């Protein structure tokens, strides 16, 4: 038998090819797809940054899409494209949605801002809704949730439940949204436990279960006995469960992934807003606007308080009610930054403009913010 004449090339090619396939296969299998859009009064399109099976951010937006179908029935058809990267692909997908008869398009990640704006200018008769951005035109609205309100409640729980006085925070990207969440969390924690600190690990991804889980392990090894996360998969919470510490779910109730570890979860509830905006398009009353809704409006909700004593649950509920009623603001003065400077005096509150551009840590956060 002859020698394999191209063995090295062939074998390496196989490995290289396999690596390429692995790279291409970023997303796990999605579940069965959307209902096919046909000639209805209203066609609503969605574009997601992750797979709808991420159990977090994209999953909750998809639940919002399904609630439109449920509420408006035959009058509406919806479709979606999942796992669309935030670069050049987004503009094409949004254009395809706009040119295939969708009248209302939700683009559900910050990185879709400029592509959405470009397409919105080309399709003036189509209404666009961009989540978490700040650029608006006549046919482009923005919307987001005040998730930091829920983080404050989590901080209160963490402050009462921790034994080591150290919480770990698995964070995605150092953008204002995430920094604000970390700050709100530690402020909640310190409101009940002045010695508490939080350690942060950045994983530079919204969805990477492997990295997220590793980050949680590293934090637990450094003494954290409460794990909070601002990434989309249940991996950090599952790690907490396996290591016998406590944690919080992200974007959806993740209790089934961590029945013994989840204290509560921030639950994004986009459904009511999505139904309201779809109805507005049907009624012809849709207008470009900015919506930043929180616990009070129900866009941010909390999963049941579990795995904690009654007094902690009572305190958490009290905090929640105070934020809802406006009696408490997570960033009411005095607010002191990491360097010890007062950024909001007693009796004042950091306004939305400051919160939207927040790029510093408050006291109690360990380490420095990546620049």
């Amino acid at each position, binding site marked *: *038998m*002859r020698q*394999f*004449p*191209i063995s090295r*090339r062939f074998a*390496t*090619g196989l490995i*290289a*090819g396999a*690596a*390429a*396939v692995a*790279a*291409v*296969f*970023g*997303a*796990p*299998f*999605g579940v*069965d*797809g*959307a*209902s*096919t*859009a046909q000639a209805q009064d209203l066609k609503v399109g969605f574009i997601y940054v992750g*797979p*709808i099976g991420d159990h977090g951010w994209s999953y909750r937006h998809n639940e919002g899409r399904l609630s439109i179908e449920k509420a408006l029935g035959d009058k509406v058809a919806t*479709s*979606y*494209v*999942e*796992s*669309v*990267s*935030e*670069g*050049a*692909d987004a*503009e*094409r*997908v949004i*254009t*395809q949605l706009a*040119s*295939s008869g969708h009248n209302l398009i939700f683009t559900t990640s*910050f*990185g879709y801002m*400029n592509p959405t704006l470009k397409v919105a200018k080309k399709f003036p008769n189509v209404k666009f809704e961009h989540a978490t951005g700040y650029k608006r035109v006549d046919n482009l609205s923005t919307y987001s949730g005040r998730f930091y309100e829920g983080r404050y409640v989590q901080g209160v729980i963490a402050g009462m439940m921790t034994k080591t006085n150290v919480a770990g925070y698995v964070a995605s*990207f*150092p*953008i*204002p949204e995430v920094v604000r969440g970390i700050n709100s969390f530690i402020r909640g924690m310190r409101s009940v436990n002045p010695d508490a600190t939080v350690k942060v690990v950045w994983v*530079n991804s919204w969805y990477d279960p492997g990295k997220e889980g590793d980050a949680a392990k590293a934090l637990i090894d450094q003494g954290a006995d409460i794990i909070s996360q601002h990434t989309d998969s249940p991996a950090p919470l599952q790690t907490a469960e396996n290591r016998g510490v406590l944690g919080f779910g992200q974007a959806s109730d993740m209790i089934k992934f961590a029945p013994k570890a989840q204290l509560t979860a921030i639950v994004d509830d986009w459904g009511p807003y999505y139904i309201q905006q779809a109805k507005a398009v049907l009624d012809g009353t849709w207008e470009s606007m900015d919506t930043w809704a929180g616990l009070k409006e129900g866009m941010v909700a909390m999963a049941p308080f579990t795995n904690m004593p009654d007094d902690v649950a009572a305190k958490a509920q009290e905090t929640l009610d105070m934020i809802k009623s406006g009696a408490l603001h997570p960033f009411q003065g005095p607010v002191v930054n990491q360097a010890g400077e007062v950024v909001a005096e007693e009796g004042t509150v950091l306004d939305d403009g400051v919160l*939207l*551009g*927040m790029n510093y840590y408050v006291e109690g956060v360990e380490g420095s913010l*990546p*620049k």
Partner: protein
Amino acid sequence: MIRLESKGEPSRLFSYLSPVLAMVLTVGTGALLFELMGKPAGPSLYAYFIQPFTTLYGASELGVKATPLILIGLGLSVGFRANVWNIGAEGQLTLGAIAGGALALAFYEVETPLLLPAMMIAGVLGGMAWAAIPAFLRVKFNANEILVSLMLTYVALLLLSYLVHGPLRDPDGFNFPESRLFHDSATMPTLISGTRLHWGAVLAVLAAGAIWLMLSRSMLGFQLKILGDAPRAARFAGYREPKLVWFSLLLSGGLAGLAGALEVSGTVGQLIPTISPGYGFTAIIVAFLGRLHPVGVVIGGLTMALTYIGGETAQIEIGLPAAVTGLFQGVLLFYLLACDVLINYRLRFGRRLAIG
């Protein structure tokens, strides 16, 4: 016991037909898969493979998506012929994007027709510089270029992340990690108005022609082929391997860098944390799909682009999950490798040694 036995000189015809055969098998498997998922096979396949061609915008997007794949695939195929395995084109693309993009931002409000060419040259140099590291380490210390180039990809992505979070961040952008939008003078003009097809597509076709000439007509092309097929013979003939390693890596790095500069100036229009959805890795499949031949790479690049765009169309029209795209690409590569094996070798069952 099953053994593979060489057929000797493989059929030239079938070696070229192999990708076509693989494509047909992939489509057949896809039809079966759709039926199993409860989706009608006919309309699904139509949405996936035909519908993107039915509008001018869809067809032009094919070119937009294929441009970086072809540019990178061309460079990689030259190296792969010579057994130089540059797996880090994604990183070289990123460096090209950084170099080109930084220049656009440095000369933000300078109106000059020289800016775009300068950005492209900066992109090429950026990619070359990144590829020079594995080239140097391989030539000097015999370090494995697969590992070095792959690992440098992650360094490049973190460098880009640092830049858009810090020095190159949009001053009016609420601290979000992206640069400001490039000025018009740093935006690649489109070929057809209303589409995003830009001059990069022309560059990709020109590059394919130039590389075809280089491989088929020049001594350098011949040396690369010999180095890949018979490294000992190449050494015996006095070919200088270091020179060829340098050439392969700089060429593939430069083309990947050009692809990166084209992406930021042509389609994205700013620097953002993720410039490429994995073009550098997908281009590896493109190179093999194209039989490491420039014309094949062009066809391979268009085919891969179709699997992406078709996947999006199928999601919108039929509601197929995005994972189908990855599945199609994996199945395609699997069939391609399987066809190659069966064209070059025959299966023998049993223990007896064949004679001949």
